[in-house]
């Protein structure tokens, strides 16, 4: 437990170092409010939450409606160019590099995380590992599946190609938010 707290702390440090916004939330519900608030405050009109279903989706939809944001969760190709916020639930976090591991096998997940202005990824606290090597086994299992697309994401899209000046948001999202969800030790 002590070590999870420490690991999440390291992850925060490393994430902040690459301009990622890093927060903790109690659970999915709080993550939803965060996403809707953020989208609203940025003037976003569309929030994409690929793969979200059932009660969760209804809950998020209700919050979106209150802020006048439309929620999309499938066939995201049809919304290219209009998605403000991509909301995804990641599989793991890697503390040593501030990285989120996102199974992006579904095309919708890819679109939500690549073609949005702001990408929010929720990572369960228990899924934060100290280093990539601690995940080698799990990652290998994921990669064995035909057609799998696994993404390590560590910050917002960046370039330094003009006079080495660091510039954020060249192709992908201009902001990247990590929400660690679950109580301490949870």
């Amino acid at each position, binding site marked *: 437990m002590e070590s999870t707290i420490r690991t999440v702390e390291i992850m925060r440090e*490393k994430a902040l*170092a*690459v301009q990622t916004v890093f927060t903790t939330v109690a659970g999915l519900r709080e993550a939803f409010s965060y996403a809707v608030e953020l989208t609203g405050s940025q003037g976003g009109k569309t929030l994409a939450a690929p793969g979200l279903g059932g009660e969760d989706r209804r809950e998020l939809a209700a919050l979106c409606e209150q802020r006048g944001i439309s929620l999309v969760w499938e*066939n995201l*190709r049809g919304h*290219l*160019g209009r998605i403000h916020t991509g909301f995804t639930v990641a599989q793991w976090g890697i503390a*040593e*590099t*501030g*990285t989120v591991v996102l199974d*992006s*096998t*579904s*095309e919708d997940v*890819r*679109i939500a995380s*690549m*073609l949005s202005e702001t990408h929010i990824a929720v990572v369960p606290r228990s899924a934060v590992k100290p280093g*990539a*090597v601690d995940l*080698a086994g799990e*990652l*290998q299992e994921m*990669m*064995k*599946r*035909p*057609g*799998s*697309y*696994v*993404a*390590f*994401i*560590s*910050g*917002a*899209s*960046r*370039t*330094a*190609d*003009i*006079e*080495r*000046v660091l*510039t954020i*948001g*060249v*192709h*992908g*999202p201009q902001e990247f938010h990590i929400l660690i969800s679950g109580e301490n030790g949870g």
Partner: protein
Amino acid sequence: MITTPSDVREYRRDLKRALRNQFLGNTLETFASAFRISRARAFEGIDLPGLIGEIAEGKDASIQRLEELFQSFKTHAEAAGVKVHTARTALEANALIASIAAENGVKRIVKGKSMTAEETFLNDHLEKAGFQVTETDLGEWIIQLRGEGPSHMVMPAIHLSRKEVAELFTRVTGTPQDPENIDGMVKVARRELRQAYLEADMGITGANFAVADTGTIGLVTNEGNGRLVTTLPRVHVALVGFDKLVPDLPSALRILKALPRNATGQPISTYVTWITGATQCTTAPEGRKVMHIVFLDNGRLALARDPLFSQALRCIRCGACANVCPIYKLVGGHNYGHVYIGAIGLILTYFYHGRQNARAIVRACLNCQACKAVCPAGIDLPHLIKEVLRTVLETEGRKPAKNRLLARILPNRKLFHFLLRRAYLAQRPLTGGGEYIRHLPLFFSPEHQFRSLPAITGTPLRDRWHKMAPQVKDPSIRVALFGGCLVDFVYPEQAAAFLELVKDRNVQVEYPQDQTCCGLPAKMMGENTVAKAVAIQNLKAIDPADYDYIVTLCASCGSHIRENYPKLLGDSSGFGVKMHQFMDKIIDFSSFLANVLKVEPAMFREGGPKAAYHAPCHLCRGLGVTQEPRELIGTAGMEYAPAKDEDVCCGFGGSFSLEFPELSAELLTRKLDCVEAAGADLLVTDCPGCVLQLRGGMDRREGKKIPVKHIAEALAEQKRANGRRSG
């Protein structure tokens, strides 16, 4: 189309033009300084030598079984719905990719950054075949629009200023762009390229890894363009060099630990993407992407079987060997490589793009070892560069006059030394009796005037030795002094200073008379046979069993003996054992004084000049000695004045400075500027080659002339001053 001169004279013209480009020089210099810091920070807490060792070992093991790894990759990838191809040549790869595009009714193509595609000139081929190709990495897009090749393997447009980019974007968009608004220009690219992604039918990428046991490719990018290229279009083709094969994910992760840290000083690149097989793609006919992976041979499989050059396949394309290279810093990637750039570029150009493109550029290496010290795959880059040079010279069979001369003279020590003595007489009209050659003979051009050349001494060390040799009855340490040509024939006073310092320490010093040139100049010129012949002479001249140490005042000799004798002689030469004993006993001056004699402050005067230090390449990287000389400065009562870039090459590089005087001069100027800025009133170093360069440059320098001394001379002076005080 990229052109690289094959003629040295033409190449020197290009180099001179590049040296006049101040923006380039400043940018690369600032970058190099920033890189050094960010790289060090990125590797904090990581056992870097351990990691390099693991990467090298892992890569070597893979290189030995590329075909087996390929079969495994193919089986797994094909099971996941990919068509895997091999292309033996660049043309075959290009034609294959064009036919995949044609079969799939493709018109527009978006590309992720790929050095392998640069290698095959894929874009040219596809465009000629009627396809529209858009590079999506910002830097690559910029140079594509300008019709240039990359000038760096990681930062392809590093040679361009914001002003040049603004002009380009103004032309492309038809709206004026503000050069000061870099963010705005990036947004222009974002907009324009977003459109290209949406319209493209096919995406082409390279791969940083091809993971055999799952059939997965790994892509490392910061911009995220690789993800869009592999997601939006319905067809994806990856062009992958055979050298990118790794057995499994842990091997890839090990490389990933070093790649971004060594490339850009980042702990990890923003996006690392692992793709196994044909992924979901809702616009493709069956909801799955049409995916092809083309493995490029183009000489790699043959390279893999070469006992020496196979090392080059370890390269993970981090670009660091360019960042730290003093020559790259001066002239940029368009003048220091063909397609592949920097140290590894000099090597790969020969294999992938041919002798004509390699023959001039491969000469422009100082052997300063900076590239080798920074390579995360532990490639012995300077050695491979010299071996390429040798191969080129041998293939061409018409060696430069200086090579032919060297081959005739150097192996015959008596002739060589006779000529050096004659040279003393011949130079007299040129020196006016002073310590420098005041007038260069006619065969030197005015470009060689950037430093004064020292006069050859009238009485070489070997001839005055019988008078100098210390007489010690019952020595506690027996030393053979390995002089090297410069100490023997130009600076015997450096040896005298050494003797002064060991006096009263019960050290017996001998100067075995049959010793000769260490052979480094021959190695530098690709004359391995000559280098080997003189190596054997030295092993015969000095029997390591007779001595406790073989001390040298010349870091270049020391590092050449330690590093290259085994490569030249091997263990089967019959000299194997003696050679290793010789190598074990050879020690540089500073280490001998600091670690063996353990000299103490009491021996020296307290207080003295403020001394800057130049770290010779062959001492700090070649022999790995960094602490001792700096400590000695303090021990000897002087004040150490740290200077910027102490361990950057002074530009001597032996015959390099004669072949490329303009590069040598520029490096020297930068070095002396740093020394001056440090506020030093003395410059010390521990290699007579560096003394030659630095002192000669100081002599020609306008303004303040700071004396330059071998550290032995500086220490002897401090000791003498102490004697005067107490005496």
